[in-house]
């Protein structure tokens, strides 16, 4: 009997614990009616973003008494791991920063379809229609765009001059870029630290560049989960670099591994970097804003650059208890002029045309330069943001991994294409 009694005690304790746990969740529901709303917001990015978000939250909380916002900053490395476990438990934060994973989360029913809030708590009046559509999945508004970004070729003017090589023309092609990179490397100069200077990085470091090249050829990268390109397209794209790789023109991969998380360009060891335009903020302090020239991406064979500005989005967990407030907060963070003032171009270019028109860049933030770049390449932005497949993140990771293998000379372009294809299950 004593045994069962012990069990009874343990069970009772368990029930009590459960009740306690129950209490805490009941409590939030109860106070909800009392006017207190708790929202959790999460994002990735550097330290400075934490402060920017906190400042923005303060404004929102002041204007919405009873709303309490908890910010959960994260680094990109662990961001999606956390989201996937939360997603499995259906306990996602109320508001999240999103990238190409939007499709996957939307398809799994983890996100709130904000369509019915558009025109209510969300105002897209001054947001470009293509940007709004870019944040939709299957025609439903799962994403709320807060910024757009594109690619750019960063050039270190000082190093190019030192190498005695001419600047690239704006309408340069992929081949011209690679030849130019080779020229600078061949010049054999060293930087102020005595390190050898290379012309630039290889172009395998982001699938985005491959997609850009495809779009220039008139190929739509993805139609849903079906690729519009073939294995041969991957081989052809990688073949652009063959000569440079054979000659050691590109920034060496073992050096890239060592300087990570920095890169050759920010180390002043590489004269150019073809990457996201938003990297300006990262590069300027290391290279010096006065040394940086931003050029559009290389032109394709047709002479078209066919650039696009892809939106970054917020999304709301389907499990949110406060869809009304969450959508309102998303709209506030995405479009409010005061928030734009706080963030500058840190999250990309403001999506709301009116907010952007009223935005006055501060000296030394790099905002003026980034905005000027975007204005200057507006004429080349003729393409619509390509769709991203559900497994975008895995495809990207596999691409980067294979590119590293190829740079170390372990696999050929053909093996790269074949392995990527197999891994993608195509």
């Amino acid at each position, binding site marked *: 009997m*004593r*045994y069962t009694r*012990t069990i009874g005690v*343990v069970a009772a304790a368990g029930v009590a614990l459960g009740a306690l746990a129950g209490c805490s969740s009941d409590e939030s529901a109860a106070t909800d009616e009392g006017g207190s709303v708790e929202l959790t917001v999460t994002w990735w990015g550097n330290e400075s973003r934490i402060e920017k978000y906190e400042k923005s939250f303060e404004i929102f909380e002041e204007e919405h008494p009873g709303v309490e916002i908890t910010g959960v900053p994260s680094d990109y*490395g662990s961001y*999606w*791991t956390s989201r*996937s*476990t939360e*997603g*499995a438990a259906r306990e996602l934060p109320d508001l999240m920063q999103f990238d190409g994973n939007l499709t996957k989360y939307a398809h*799994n*029913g*983890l996100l709130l379809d904000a369509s019915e809030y558009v025109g209510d708590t969300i105002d897209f009046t001054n947001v470009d229609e293509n940007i709004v559509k870019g944040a939709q999945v299957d025609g439903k508004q799962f994403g709320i765009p807060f910024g757009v970004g594109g690619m750019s070729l960063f050039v270190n003017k000082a190093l190019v001059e030192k190498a005695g090589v001419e600047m690239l023309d704006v309408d340069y092609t992929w081949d011209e870029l690679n030849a130019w990179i080779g020229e600078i490397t061949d010049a054999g100069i060293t930087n102020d630290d005595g390190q050898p200077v290379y012309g630039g990085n290889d172009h395998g470091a982001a699938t985005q560049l491959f997609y850009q090249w495809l779009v220039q050829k008139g190929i739509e990268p993805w139609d849903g989960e079906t690729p519009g390109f073939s294995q041969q397209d991957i081989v052809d794209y990688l073949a652009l670099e063959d000569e440079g790789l054979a000659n050691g023109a590109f920034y060496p*991969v*073992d*050096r*890239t*591994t*060592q300087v*990570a*998380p920095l890169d050759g360009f920010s180390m002043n060891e590489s004269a150019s970097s073809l990457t996201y335009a938003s990297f300006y903020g990262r590069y300027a302090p290391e290279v010096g804003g006065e040394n940086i020239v931003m050029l559009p991406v290389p032109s394709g064979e047709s002479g078209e650059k066919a650039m696009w500005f892809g939106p970054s989005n917020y999304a709301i967990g389907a499990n949110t208890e406060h869809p009304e407030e969450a959508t309102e907060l998303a709209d506030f963070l995405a479009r409010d002029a005061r928030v734009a003032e706080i963030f500058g171009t840190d999250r990309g270019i403001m999506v709301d045309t009116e907010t952007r028109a009223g935005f006055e860049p501060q000296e030394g933030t790099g905002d003026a330069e980034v905005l000027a770049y975007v204005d200057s390449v507006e004429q080349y932005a003729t393409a619509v943001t390509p769709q991203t497949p559900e497994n975008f*993140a*895995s495809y990207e*990771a596999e691409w980067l*991994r294979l590119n*590293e*293998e190829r740079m*170390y000379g*372990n696999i050929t372009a053909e093996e790269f294409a074949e*392995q990527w294809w197999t891994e993608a299950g195509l």
Partner: protein
Amino acid sequence: MSVITEKVPVTRAASGETAARRPVAGARIRRRPHGQNNRAGYTFLLPWLIGFIGLTAGPMIASLYLSFTEYNLFSPPEWIGLDNYARLFADPRFQQSAVVTLTYVLIGTPVKLVVSLAVAMLLNNNRRGQSFYRSAFYVPSLVGASVAIAIVWRAMFIDDGVVDRIGAFFGIDWGGWVGDPNYTIYMFILLAAWQFGAPMVIFLAGLKDIPAELYEAADMDGAGRWRKFVSITLPTLSPVLFFNLLLEMINAFQVFGSAFIISNGSGGPAGSTLFYTLYLYQRGFEDQQLGYASALAWVLLVVIGIVTAIFFRSSKMWVHYGGDAR
């Protein structure tokens, strides 16, 4: 009475149920103390048992089930039979990670044991400040698994880092190991060997247990240091050696933390530090292929099980326990 209660548990343990059913006179009286003993035992065991079932056994069984399914965390697992296991054979990265891990186990474990035994022997005397040295040599094991050390380690092995300069001093130009796939694994082996504290302490205890008269007798016979080491120290230390070998090997199979930090979770450069557990993590939590990751985990468990079994079998040949008649 005391005689009965002491004896009963022995017989009962063998056939508790049948004995309980048997209508033997006095059974009731005898049963109570026995049952009560067990109850108390189980009651005290309960916290651990709940933890074991809820946190270890349960998840393990769940992962065994998941290894036969396709599961992406978001939608319910879908039964696919042995597909995950079949996939392993055609997976180049599985093979890559197996090679990396085996290299680490086969080279790293012996190196670590040799280092820890050597240090243990150096410390096995009665010099002053003994306990200080013992603690000092144990420190790397305490801090070794930390993020900070992994970062320091990385910094030591980059171009122009400490190791590169030491190499240059001796006229060797091996550059930074961090960026060279041929060297990265040795970086990890050195990191493991540096954390020799735990096996060292166990070795030290073993060394203290070797009867001094054995060495005295050997001295009388004119045996040299090496002879004494091979003929006395190693054989008498063999149970301890066996224990350390087994433990360190199992640990080496499961290395994760340092690998994750040094390569930032990528297993790079060029997959040269793609340890098995890191690959498992990537599959499970980055690619969200929980089913495949579970299959990977079970393969690791089975491999460690087999290797451990082989060790135990072979131990009869080389491990000598004190008081053994042989």
